[in-house]
């Protein structure tokens, strides 16, 4: 009898978790649909969009640039050390280029921007929720989804690909610096090798991934901030949840998109 109760309790907990997950997924899908549907309905807030493009894009540039530079440099050293075991050290330029453009540029760039932007969006919108600023927007005849969420999500979709493209170039440059100064590569040969090896699909996959990651990281910031609990604890939890969920979803989306592209 006790065993039966334990089994039922165990199954019930699985059922509860599954239902909870499905409900959360449904809520997020409705939120995303509602945000994106605002594109088709005026009025629009170009000043807000411009402000968010600066916040998400321009101010994330140092973080993404530094991440890409050091990653490219470390990657060059690793490939050199690993390739030397079977006399394949010369593949450094091509593998750095492919590694950065296909994977590390968008993924690390996305994760770094998620850490910076998702948390900031969740904290800002969460504080607006707690201090009734979102209710105030509504009473001032302004749809919070249109004024707060859409500009941030659009800024993510538009700015993150640009960031990642710049990050890709800086990452390859990091590899080039190490390759030419420490590993003895000829400058012209390194560049030629890099350019010869990269294909249009590599670049397209990088930018498509960046678009998707930009959407995910801004959406998660907005979603968790919008549904923030009360008080400082609620805003803190929203911020943490935004970064964690954005990071996990970026990694999951990266796998799906890699499968789709290659």
């Amino acid at each position, binding site marked *: 009898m006790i065993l039966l109760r334990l089994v039922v309790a165990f199954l019930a907990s699985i059922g509860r978790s599954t239902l909870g997950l499905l409900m959360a997924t449904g809520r997020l899908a409705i939120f995303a649909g509602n945000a994106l549907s605002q594109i088709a309905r005026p009025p629009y807030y170009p000043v807000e969009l411009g402000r968010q493009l600066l916040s998400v894009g321009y101010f994330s540039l140092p973080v993404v640039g530094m991440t890409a530079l050091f990653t490219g440099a470390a990657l060059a050293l690793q490939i050199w050390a690993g390739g030397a075991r079977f006399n394949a050290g010369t593949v450094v330029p091509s593998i750095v280029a492919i590694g950065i453009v296909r994977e590390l540029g968008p993924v690390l760039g996305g994760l770094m921007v998620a850490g910076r932007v998702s948390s900031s969006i969740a904290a800002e919108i969460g504080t607006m929720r707690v201090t009734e600023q979102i*209710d*105030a927007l509504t009473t001032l005849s302004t749809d919070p989804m249109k004024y707060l969420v859409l500009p941030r999500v659009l800024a993510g979709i538009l700015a993150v690909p640009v960031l990642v493209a710049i990050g890709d170039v800086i990452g390859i440059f990091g590899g080039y610096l190490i390759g030419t100064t420490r590993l003895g590569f000829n400058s012209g040969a390194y560049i030629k090798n890099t350019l010869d090896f990269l294909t249009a699909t590599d670049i397209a996959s990088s930018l498509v991934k960046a678009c998707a990651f930009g959407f995910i990281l801004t959406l998660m910031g907005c979603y968790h901030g919008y549904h923030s609990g009360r008080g400082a604890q609620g805003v803190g939890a929203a911020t943490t949840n935004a970064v964690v969920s954005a990071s996990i979803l970026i990694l999951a989306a990266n796998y799906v998109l890699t499968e789709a592209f290659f």
Partner: protein
Amino acid sequence: MADSGDIALPDTSTPGVPRIELRDVKKRFGHKRVLNGVSFKVMPGESLVIIGGSGTGKSVTLKCILGIIRCDSGQILLDGQPDDSSDRRTFLKQFGMLFQGGALFDSLSVWQNVAFRLRHARRPMPRKEARERAIEKLRRVGLGPETADLYPAELSGGMQKRVGLARAIATDPRIIFFDEPTAGLDPIMAGVINDLIRELVTEMGATAVTITHDMTTVRTVADHVAMLHDGKVQWFGRIEDMDSATDPYLDQFIHGRATGPIAAIR
């Protein structure tokens, strides 16, 4: 009529028809029943003050009227008509609201806060004209033009309340809600805000609904008083009749007694 800057709609009220009427409005959050059949009427140009203990549903009532929260059942009528949710913007143009904490937008300057509705209308008011209008409204609530370019974080609590008030009246709305207008203010500043609310409501001819725990506010601002208890209107009457009313709940509340039918610990 041009609606540049979302100026409030013309007054189309019918004599004898309440500006706001709630009929048996109910609302629950999960297992917690907050409103359990709230009914009252507010006539055009009248000022109703809603009092009641914390958690009795005062703010929820206002948010239900505004449509920020959807009530579970009952009817909310404006000028005798139910809310036509198909055009929220037109519906909300009738309202101004002062929030408890001011709810000013941190990223915008004072004048941009006051002129927010004017600048974000379907046909936005030009920047210069909107700024002038904001400064005029700031002056009306006792703030000089030098405050226009400050940010909310640079203002004291009393000044934030005044800016919130200026924002609430920026488009001369027909209905104004005040949520705890004197909460967190010293008695002198509270008196200033109370007098301002009374003056503005009288001057504009607006219909006002105020939520408060502050009995000074009740006596300064109210034409009528509604006391909420246990999700219902426990007492409703004219301000002149409040002190002589025999309702034990009202008596305990207005005299701030710890003993009586309202449990001190809820």
